[in-house]
């Protein structure tokens, strides 16, 4: 293990978190006409409540002290009180986050596996019919907005064929379910959103995998492996794939923002009670503490996932592992 690399990546992640915090401070607090002070000053605001809010956000303090107070509160996980839910923001998020993680993680795992598989098939059959077909479908899927794909799947499988439930995560009104029934119900609700989400990112990963492999096929060590007497299958599996995983890990890491975008769209279409729909709700209700909390949590998740990817990279690239 390379401590230097580990620490460098850790510090980079911390700096990114700091940048995110600062951006969010500027957006929500420091910009002229920022939402928090607008909210406090808004008509019909009870002066008593306004006073409490001013105190809570430290609005009477100069901006730089506000910034310090803000950073401290955020680091303690105190994202404030939601305007509309009258509950701490962190509680609301904690309730919703697991639902999104189920959806996103499932789709992510599915699409990484299939993306790598399909990309490998396409690259190993470069120029043949199957390659053209796979590449064509990947490009086609890339061109489809994820939410529209969701709508189309929903209207066909949900409305037309009535195979799956139309929205939500569990069927409303069903109580006292056994664990098994609950699991079955959630699974039924999960199928379409997961398919939508998974398809959208699988295409992307397959294209990138194909490109990475085609690059590697031109490397000299591929010729060495062939000269050793190995067949194509062995060479691809043992020589090309381990090398192609390096760019893949990087790409998967920087695609996480893309995954979040997919989650928000999918959740909206299928009314999945996760972070995405929460964001939309916070926007509709102009609930800024909640919006800020959601934004920060999503960023934190993406930054941590990125950090994990960097660590995985360290383990699969010997050039970094033993520097």
């Amino acid at each position, binding site marked *: 293990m390379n401590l230097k690399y580990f620490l460098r990546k850790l510090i980079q992640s911390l700096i990114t978190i700091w940048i995110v915090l600062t951006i969010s401070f500027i957006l929500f607090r420091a910009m002229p006409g920022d939402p928090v002070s607008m909210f406090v000053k808004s008509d019909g605001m009870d002066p008593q409540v306004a006073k409490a809010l001013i105190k809570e956000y430290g609005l009477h303090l100069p901006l730089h002290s506000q910034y310090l107070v803000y950073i401290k509160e955020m680091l303690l996980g105190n994202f404030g009180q939601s305007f509309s839910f009258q509950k701490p923001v962190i509680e609301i998020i904690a309730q919703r986050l697991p639902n999104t993680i189920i959806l996103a993680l499932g789709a992510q795992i599915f699409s990484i596996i299939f993306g790598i598989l399909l990309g490998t098939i396409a690259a190993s059959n470069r120029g043949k019919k199957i390659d053209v077909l796979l590449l064509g479908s990947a490009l086609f899927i890339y061109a489809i907005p994820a939410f529209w794909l969701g709508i189309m799947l929903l209207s066909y499988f949900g409305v037309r064929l009535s195979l799956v439930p139309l929205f939500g995560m569990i069927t409303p009104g069903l109580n006292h379910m056994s664990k098994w029934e609950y699991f079955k119900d959630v699974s039924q609700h999960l199928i379409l959103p997961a398919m939508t989400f998974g398809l959208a990112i699988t295409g992307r990963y397959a294209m990138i995998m194909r490109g990475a492999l085609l690059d590697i096929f031109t490397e*000299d*060590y591929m*010729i*060495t492996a062939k*000269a*050793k*007497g190995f067949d194509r299958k062995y060479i691809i599996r043992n020589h090309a794939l*381990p090398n192609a995983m390096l760019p893949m890990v990087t790409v998967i890491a920087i695609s996480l923002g893309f995954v979040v975008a997919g989650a928000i769209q999918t959740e909206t279409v299928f009314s999945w009670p996760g972070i995405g729909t929460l964001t939309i709700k916070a926007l509709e209700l102009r609930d800024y503490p909640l919006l800020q909390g959601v934004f920060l949590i999503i960023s934190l998740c993406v930054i941590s996932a990125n950090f994990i990817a960097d660590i995985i990279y360290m383990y699969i690239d*010997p050039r970094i592992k033993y520097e």
Partner: protein
Amino acid sequence: MEDRNILKVEDLNVFFKVNGGIVRAVENVNFQLKDGESIGIVGESGCGKTTTALAIMGMLPGNGYVDNGRIFFEGEDIINKDEKQWQRYRWNKISMIFQGAMNSLNPVMKIRRQIGEAIRLHNPTITKGEINARVVELFKLVGLDEKRINYYPHEFSGGMKQRVMIAMALACNPKLIIGDEPTTALDLMIQAQIIDLINDLRRKLNMGMIIITHDLSIISEICDRVAVMYAGNIVEIGSIEDIIENYKHPYTEKLIKAFPSIYGDKRMAESIPGAPPNPLSPPKGCRFHPRCHKSIDICKNVLPKYTSFGNRHFAACHVVKGDSLNE
């Protein structure tokens, strides 16, 4: 009588299909290699020397094919082997040292595994311990520290990587090793170390060797015989002494005179006027005639046949002729 040849290449033609037509990369190439003998193939880039080597390994790229000719290895015609048979024969019987070892080793695989996988492939019954012992033995043989068998390629310097490459080529005790520019891009001193290593191994292991290079001096250090290639043809072939001191073909002459020597007068090396022909449309007749200082009318139309100068020394030139061959 000829069976003592481990390799015999007969009338080999290798062509490539490209957009603009067919490139005749190698045409009418003949040479033989006796057991334990080493031959150098010298020529400018694009003359077909690497293609010849790839044909012997059965590793021509997708658009290349053997149009004509036969290659005998230990008396067996190998040209019509199918891919499965080729796979069993590669590395086991003929292995290769590639140019630019930095890129010829897999960067994410330990050296022990890279050598070991080849040993296991060709001896499926071998145990893990035996493989390790063999890798250690090979490391000692090429002068590498055996503690480094578990290193990755980037942890070796350029010269050491080339030693790793040589150890890998020796892994299955092949009868023949092909070295494709084995010392190019290395510093002079490292180059000398590698040449010494190869000569040392040749003495110890008695294997056949083909060295492909543009640098005649490397061949003069390592090889017994030389084949000079120009635009897909072997224009002259013979022992190293015959080629360097008793060259016949005008191209060989130019090649040797282009070599600076610090012994003797300060004489600017001669350059060869013009450029090698476009492989898509080589000139008619002798392919060298547009650049040849000795060319006569017949060179423009008729491809010269080989004539013999004794002691397995042949050249193909209309102007400089030896005894004609019966064939």
